[in-house]
Structure formats: structure tokens, C-alpha cells
């Protein structure tokens, strides 16, 4: 049985169909990377997995439990086994880094403050953020915020980690740092991960399988080597990063010829 089972998942907002009959299975310990253009429903997929949205049809099951059918209490129990890393980190801005990472520990585990302290330090050092515990989120850079978000997500030792565009808006060096942190977390914690990203370099490093969402449908879900040579024109266009092709609904204006440099 797959740890995460997405079955015929469809979701629309008004007339706009965002996900249409998406099927994905993620096995325990596996790392799935979901690629796709902006607005193709990647984040909506993660929100359905977390139970933040209810599917119009189809379902998401975690360890065989159908998320949409759970009571609030049961849903919260399942959520304790999932760590969600938000696109813009979503840190609690009235709390320090320490309080952010300690939040889940204090609420759900009956452990002493010393044990909380030790676990927070352990999580912060896993993401390379040791010594920042007294800072407020406003004092952190974008990359640092996301790493603190990772630390908060792993604090309760979840079985599943979901990363929502963890590198969007970061410089290439920080993108690489985040990619390495995700890889480290995957190897050290042995968790099952779903990562949504636009960064192909880290996608190929992290992924056991890569899925591509295109206009709400999952058009491929295969290991990186097979994905790279998949002849589907949309996949090849996405990998090339070219504006010309079937990927965009509205064709872009023709490419201007760059002015030749003065001799």
C-alpha cells in the first residue's frame, strides 16, 4: 500500500478547473518531485494532501486513511505525521525562531522544557540555522526563513515532508543551499517527501520520481532518467525552458533579435 495515494483527484475554483483526475502514488521513503508551470495546481495538490482543501471528486489517502472523510480530531492526528514547508515559510511573525520551532512540540508532546530546547537545537542544526533561535522572522533573509520553516516542519519527527516551492524567489546559491538541505533531510531522516519546485537542478538531485502537471493533469510520473528522455513535447519544452511550444496556452510574442554589439 502506498503511503500517499492520490486517486482521481479533481478540484475546481468556480469555472476554473485546477486539477483534473490526478493519480499519484508515493511509497514509503520515496521522494517525489512535482513540476509544472505556474497555476497548474501544484500547490492545490499539496493543500488537498494536507486536508486544507476538500476535493470536488476523487480522494487523497495517507496510510489508507481518506483525508476528506476524517473527523477534525483524526485529521489533526494524521497532520502530526506530516511536515509542511510553505512557499514563503509562513513563520509566526510574533514569535522568535525558537518559539516557532518549539510550537508543535509544546502543543502536542508532554516533554520538559529542556527536552524542547534540545529538540529545537537539533532541528535548527539539521537545517544549518544553529544560533538563530532568539531572532524574529523579520530579521531573517528569505532563505533563512525557509530553513527555519523546515526546522519547524521536522520538529515532530514526521513520516512525510511536503515542500511547496522551497526555492522560488531565492538567488542561485541559496537555491543550491536549500536543495542540499532537502537532500540532507531526506537521507538523515529517511522521510517520504513531495517537493514542488521549478528548479530542475535540485529536482533531478532530490527526486526518485518526477511528475509533471500540465493544465491540471498529471502527464508523466517516472524516474528522473526516464523523465529526461520522455518524448512528450510539453516535457521536452519544460526541460529546455523554451517559450515556444505547446506548454503555454497563449503563444508568446515572437523573439526579438538581439542588437549586434558595436564593433
Amino acid at each position, binding site marked *: 500500500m502506498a503511503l500517499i495515494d492520490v486517486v482521481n483527484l479533481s478540484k475546481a475554483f468556480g469555472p476554473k478547473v485546477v486539477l483534473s483526475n490526478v493519480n499519484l502514488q508515493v511509497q514509503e521513503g520515496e521522494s517525489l518531485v512535482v513540476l509544472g508551470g505556474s497555476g497548474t495546481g501544484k500547490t492545490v495538490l499539496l493543500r488537498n494532501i494536507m486536508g486544507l482543501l476538500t476535493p470536488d471528486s476523487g480522494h487523497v489517502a495517507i496510510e489508507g486513511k481518506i483525508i476528506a472523510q476524517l473527523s477534525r480530531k483524526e485529521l*489533526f492526528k494524521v497532520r502530526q505525521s506530516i511536515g509542511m514547508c510553505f512557499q514563503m515559510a509562513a513563520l509566526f511573525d510574533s514569535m522568535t525562531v525558537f518559539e516557532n520551532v518549539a510550537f508543535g512540540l509544546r502543543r502536542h508532546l508532554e516533554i520538559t522544557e529542556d527536552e524542547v530546547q534540545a529538540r529545537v537545537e537539533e532541528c535548527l542544526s539539521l537545517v544549518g540555522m544553529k544560533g538563530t533561535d532568539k531572532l524574529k522572522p523579520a530579521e531573517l533573509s528569505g532563505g533563512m526563513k525557509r530553513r527555519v520553516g523546515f526546522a519547524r516542519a521536522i520538529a515532530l519527527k514526521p513520516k512525510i515532508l511536503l515542500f511547496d516551492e522551497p526555492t522560488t524567489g531565492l538567488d542561485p546559491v541559496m537555491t543550491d543551499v536549500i536543495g542540499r538541505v532537502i537532500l540532507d533531510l531526506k537521507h538523515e531522516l529517511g522521510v517520504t517527501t513531495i517537493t514542488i519546485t521549478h528548479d530542475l537542478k535540485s529536482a533531478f538531485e532530490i527526486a526518485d520520481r518526477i511528475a509533471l502537471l500540465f493544465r491540471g493533469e498529471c502527464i508523466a510520473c517516472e524516474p528522473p532518467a526516464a523523465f529526461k528522455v520522455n518524448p512528450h513535447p510539453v516535457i521536452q519544452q519544460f526541460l529546455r525552458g523554451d517559450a515556444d511550444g505547446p506548454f503555454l496556452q497563449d503563444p508568446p510574442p515572437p523573439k526579438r533579435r538581439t542588437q549586434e554589439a558595436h564593433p
Partner: protein
Amino acid sequence: MVLTFIDKTGASVLSALDTAGDFATLAGRTFAAIFKRPFDGKNLLNQFQAVGVHSLPVVILTSVAVSMVFAVQLAFGFRQFQAEGLASQVEGLAIVRELGPVITGLMLSGRIGSAMAAELGTMQVTEQIDALECLATDPIHYLFVPRFLAAIVVVPLLTVVSIYVGFWGGYMILVGVEGQSAYVYGHEFYKLLAFRDLRIALYKAFVFGMIISLVGCWRGYRTQGGAEGVGNAPTSSVVTSSLWILISDFFLTKLLLV
């Protein structure tokens, strides 16, 4: 044209019912979450400080100002009938029964209701409320309940402060300016009042505290649309809660004075 009118009216009625239903659901979830565990004492104390201690100056200032203006008007009005002695009696009646709770309620809807809406609205658009959900924490229990409890305790307490300050505001005008005897003012202020009047004022303040906190949290929780939405949430919270404070004041007065 008639069909269009009926169509629009029907849509407005449905939308209003939808909004009322949403508010009632969240209010019900708040009541149900009050006794749920874990109890977060630190969060509750923070709210007592934000709602209570920080609101003290604004309540004192407005209560002094309103009671002084009211005393000036009463002194002027009763002078027309050579009945200046009645001014302090009516001042006492007005401050304890109406001005104390209503002014406190209206000022707090502007101060704490709007702050709640802005804070929760910002948390909503920056995905912090989703983060709470993902950390297996009920936002209603974590965000609504402490604010609600703080408001229903603090608004009655601040109403007592407002009444006390209102007494001295009237004193400054009627004794200090109009030259009434301090002993007579102190005696006459309470002449038309019974303990029941203070109890009614506290009941009203309790209901106003519920309205302010629930409307503020609800408007913030339902914020959509980024910066514009966050900007609209406090405005809408203040307008809605002020309106409901005035409407409920009328019905509470009718009900409790019987």
C-alpha cells in the same frame, strides 16, 4: 426589469444569510472550543494585556470627555427650568446605564476589534493560519478563544473603570465649574440608581465583549485578497461590531429594564 430586481434581491438575501450562517458557525465553534485542551495560559495572559491594560488610557480619556460634555449639556438644560439639582442625578443615570458600557464598547471595537481583525487578517494572507492547521492546531482554539475570553472579562472591567471615571468627569463640571456642592453631587449621582443598574451595565458590557471579539476574529479569519483585504478587515470589523453594539444595546435595555 421586475425579474432582475427580484433576482438581485434574492441574491442579496442569500448572501446575507450565508454571511450570518458563517458567523454563527464560527461563533459556535468558538464556544465549543473554550473547554478544549491544551490550555494556553501564556497566550491568554498576552491577550489580557493587549485587550485590557493597553486599552485603559483610551477608555479613561473618552469617558472623561463624554461625561464632561454630558454634564455641561445637563447643567445648561436644567438651568432653563431652575432645576440644576437634577443634573447630577441624570448624569449618574446616563453614565451607569448607557454611556459607560456603550462608550467603552464602541471605543474597544475601534481599538481591540480592529487590531484582532488586522492581526488575524495578516496571518490569513501570509498562510500563518494554514501553518497552524498543518501543525495540527485548531485556529479557532488557538486564536479565537483567548481573544474571546479576554474580551468578555475585560470589557465589563473597563466599563466599571469608565463609570468611575465618568463620575469624576461630571464632578469636574458640576462641582468645579457649575458650583454645586461636592457632598450633594456625590449623594445625588447615585440617587436614581439601584444595584440592578450596575448589573445591567455589566451584562451589556459582557455582550459587547462577545460582539467585539467574535466580529474582529471572524473578519480577520475570513480575510481574502492580500494587502487590500487586510486593509478592509479592520474597517469592516469596526463598522459591523459598532452597529451590533448599538442594536443589541437597544434590545438589552428593553429586555433588562422590564
